[in-house]
Structure formats: C-alpha cells, structure tokens
C-alpha cells in the first residue's frame, strides 16, 4: 500500500486537508506523474466519500414517541416515588377511618328510646359472649376509603390526565 515515500497516513491527511503546505505540494507534484499514487488517492477518496455521506442511519419515524411512552410508563404509581405515595395514602386512609370510628362510637343515641316502643323482656342466657377478634367497622371503613381512593386514581390516570395532555398537545 505504500510507495514513493508517501505513507497511507500522509495520504489520508492530504485527503482530509490536514497536511502542511509543503507536504501538500510534494504530494501534488508526485500525483502528476505517478499512476499508482493516483489509484491510491482514488481508492481512499471513494471510501471516504461513501463513509462520510452514507454512514448515518435513522431509526423509525415513531422512535421518539416509543421512547417517550416508555418514559411515561416509568412514572406510573407502581414505580419508585409512586410506591411511597401509595403507602402514605394507605396509612392516611387507615388513620382517618380510625378517627371516624371513634366519633361514631361516641354519638349519644339515647333520644331515640322515646320513639321505640318498649318490648317485652325475654329471658336470655347472660353467659353467652361473642368474641370479635377484628374491628369490623374499622375494616369496612378502610375498605370503603381504599376503594374510593383507587377509583379516584383510576379516574385521574385513565380520563383526566390523557384529556389534559391531549389538550396541551393540541394547543402547542
């Protein structure tokens, strides 16, 4: 690949336009009479032209949209910060339910007695005790608030957010 004292490195610098003026002149002089060197320059120029013009490729048209879909998916409530929000919300709902349960138990309902007719007293065994291992009222309230919360989250994710996002995109 190397002849007439011109190395491939020198030739590539010449093609790139990086050779000094003396080097450039030297190569240009040799090129006038040297067919071999002419061939080498042609070969390098062809390859350089092809690579410079054709090496760049482009992905599909919806590439950006696909990447952004994945970015959006990363933000869903099951990921990272979202999990913390879920846990915090759950704790809040439970605490709130407990508070409400206390209030409900302290309501004085004595005034209702005047509207209820007296019923005959029936002898009932007094030693029967029904153990309730769980506070059913609390559990039902937690479930109720939990379901309400999930419903609101779903409404936000499936209806409200897409609606406002579309509106924003349309305005842009």
């Amino acid at each position, binding site marked *: 690949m190397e002849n007439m004292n011109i190395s491939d490195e020198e030739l590539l610098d010449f093609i790139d336009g990086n050779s000094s003026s003396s080097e450039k002149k030297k190569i240009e002089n040799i090129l006038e009479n040297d067919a071999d060197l002419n061939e080498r320059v042609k070969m390098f120029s062809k390859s350089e032209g092809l690579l410079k013009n054709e090496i760049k490729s482009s992905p599909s048209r919806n590439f950006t949209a696909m990447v952004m879909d994945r970015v959006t998916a*990363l933000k869903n409530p099951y990921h990272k910060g979202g999990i913390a929000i879920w846990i915090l919300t759950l704790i809040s709902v439970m605490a709130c339910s407990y508070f409400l349960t206390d209030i409900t138990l302290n309501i004085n309902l004595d005034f209702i007695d005047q509207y209820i007719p007296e019923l005959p007293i029936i002898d009932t065994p007094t030693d029967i005790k029904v153990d309730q291992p769980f506070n059913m009222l609390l559990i039902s309230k937690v479930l109720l608030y939990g379901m309400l919360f999930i419903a609101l989250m779903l409404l936000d994710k499936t209806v409200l957010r897409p609606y406002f996002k579309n509106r924003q995109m349309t305005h842009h």
Partner: protein
Amino acid sequence: MTVNQLTDDEVIDKVLGGNSDSFSILVDRYKDHSFTLAFNVMKDEKEAEDIAQEAFIKAYKNLKKFNRESKFSTWLYRITFNTALTANKKKKKYSSTSFDDSPIELIDSTKNELEQAEKKKFILQALDQLNEQDNVALTLFYLKEQSLEEICEVTGMSLSTLKVRLHRARKRMAIVLNDILKEEALNL
C-alpha cells in the same frame, strides 16, 4: 426562545425539575447518531432500534447521576456503545452475521433508495471487518459530531491508540470497500 434553541444542560434541568416531556427534545436531537452507532455494531435495524431505545431509557433513569463534565451526547453514546456490546455478545453466542442471507427487498422503493440501501449494505459489510471498538470509533469519526478526545471517552481508548487505530481502520475500510465495489461491478 424556541425549544430547539435550548442547550442540552437547560433541557436536562427541565427534565430534572419534573418536566419529563422535555426529554423528547434530547431524543429527537440524538436519536440518529445513537441509532447509527447501535446499527453499525448490531447490523440489524430492529435490534439497533431496541438498543438505542434502551440507551435513552438508561440515560433518563440516570440523568441525576450525569455529572456534566462531558457532553450529554458523549455520555449517551457511551451508554449506547456499552448496551450494544452486551447485546452483541449475547447475540454472537447463538448466531453469526451473514449479509448474503439478508437481501435488500424494497418493493416500493425508488431507484435512489435502492442505491442508498446497497451502499449501506457495503458499509456494513466493510465495518464487519473491524472489531466493535474500532467500528464505533470510526462511526463517530465520520459522524463528525465528536472530537477525538470525546471519541476516546466513548470507546475507552487513549488518544494515541485512537489515532493509530483510526488510521488503520480507515485504511482497512478503503481496501475492503474497494474490493466489494469491484466485485459488485463484475457481477453487473
């Protein structure tokens, strides 16, 4: 100021400030180069697209860790290169690349598109003669967006090594492309 006038750092600040949609500006800006890098390593459009996507997602997830000492593009190309290397290692375990098995079939394409596809095929064939590091160095060199120092950051080579290997790779590409073009001319 329009979106396109924002610098990479300004866009990154927006994303880190909670406006994740702004990340699409960076995707649009660097998708071609990132895809080209992946494509020249993988030699398969579908796989290259997956890798380029993966690289952008990794960049998004680790944006907080990006120290901004280098350009965002340099950091992204390094991620793309490493992702492509890992995928290529897995791929090579199970198969080998064959260009003859992948004829260009562009039924509705114009003559110009066919010619371009042919040229791309020749380039891929020639790039296949290089190892992955030289391949990526050469690709970045011809994409002309990165300086030699930045190419060193992406490939992990020293500057002197890069210069020697670039010269060698360019020479090799010239010889291989010359042979391919001669062969094609004979087949016509």
